[in-house]
């Protein structure tokens, strides 16, 4: 085997040293890291751009929708108010108290021995209506007080199937000073005042109670 002598070993060593220069290697490493950072930054920038574009579109959509939504809300309130008023009117019309049937019932129970001199009816309340009737008159007969009492009870009995909580009470019942002619006979009289009270219609539905925030 032939012997080789490397007379340039110093040159080769210097070249190897230059190749493995740590500063140079670290600069390469740093450049790679910077490149990665720049790439990541560029990606983030792109993401930001895309989200910005998306936000712009969403904002434009909202800017277009918001006035329409406001108009819609106003319109909804207006329509609801109109419909509520309409429903209320219909309800009021349907829940009216009819006086004619009540007058007819009074006519049916007043006997020929009684003359009604004054009739006052008063209606109060919404929904469940309270009706007060005051009936003043003159009763005649062998026992005029009984005639008046019969009328009082007859009114209560007649009204009970139609109305709620019917009460019929005498406000006054006094013997009359005058005698009247009934069936060809002179009979005594009594002066009475009857108060009739009853309820009609349905009670208003209670408003749902909103729970307050704690």
């Amino acid at each position, binding site marked *: 085997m032939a012997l080789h002598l490397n007379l340039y070993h110093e040159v080769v060593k210097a070249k190897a040293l230059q190749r*493995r220069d*740590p*500063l140079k290697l*670290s*600069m390469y490493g*740093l450049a790679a*890291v910077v490149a990665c*950072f720049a790439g*990541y*930054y560029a990606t*983030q*920038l792109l*993401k*930001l751009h895309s*989200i910005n574009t*998306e*936000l712009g579109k*969403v*904002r434009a959509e*909202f800017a277009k*929708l*918001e006035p*329409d*939504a406001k108009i*819609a*809300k106003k*319109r*909804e309130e207006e*329509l*609801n*108010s*109109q*419909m*509520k*008023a*309409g*429903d*209320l*009117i*219909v309800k*009021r*019309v349907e829940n*009216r*108290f*009819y*006086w*004619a*049937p009540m*007058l*007819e019932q009074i*006519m049916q129970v007043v006997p020929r021995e009684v*003359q*009604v*001199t*004054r*009739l*006052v*009816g*008063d*209606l109060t309340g919404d929904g469940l209506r309270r009706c007060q009737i005051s009936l003043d008159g003159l009763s005649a007969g062998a026992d005029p007080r009984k005639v008046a009492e019969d009328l009082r009870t007859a009114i209560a009995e007649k009204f009970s199937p139609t109305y709620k909580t019917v009460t019929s009470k005498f406000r006054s019942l006094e013997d009359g000073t005058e005698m009247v002619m009934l069936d060809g006979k002179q009979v005594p009289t009594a002066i009475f005042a009857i108060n009739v009270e009853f309820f009609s219609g349905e009670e208003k539905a209670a408003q749902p109670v909103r729970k307050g925030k704690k």
Partner: protein
Amino acid sequence: MKLGKEEVQKIVLGTLICFGVVYSYFNLLLGPLSKRHAALEKSLVALGPEIAAAKAQIKKTQDIEASAPGRMATTRQVVAMIPEGSPVAWFPPRVSDFFKKQGLEKATTKLNSEVVDKEMAGFRRMSWGIDLPKVGFVPFATAIAALENEEPLVEINNLQIDTTREDVEMQHALLTVSNIVKQ
């Protein structure tokens, strides 16, 4: 391998530059970018429910508008029953004509009060006093029945019938009625 003084200086300088670059990258570039990204995303997320709510509102109103004609048919009928103009001008003659038609002359109508009901938007209630000085009980009761049937917007709140001294067959009637009119 032994490092020379100059090389050590270079390495220290390089490390310092490296730290500087990393710090600047995260604090001056990536930091604000991330903050802006988060802010934009927050705005985007916040707008989502608002858009959904706006769309829901528009849809709800459209649904109500679609169902309104059917629900408001009765209201339109009611409105059609109310004459135009001031009620003081048309209601008293209307009542007089009505009772005249029923055979009861001399009905006098006067306005008592006026109530604006907040629940009935676009309408108000007017209270009137109707005086019928000479009526027979049966024709009066018949007229009341007709009034209640023909005038659905009128309700009798108070009724008073008194016998008259001059004529025992005739009564003096007073009615307090309320009717719904346009606002």
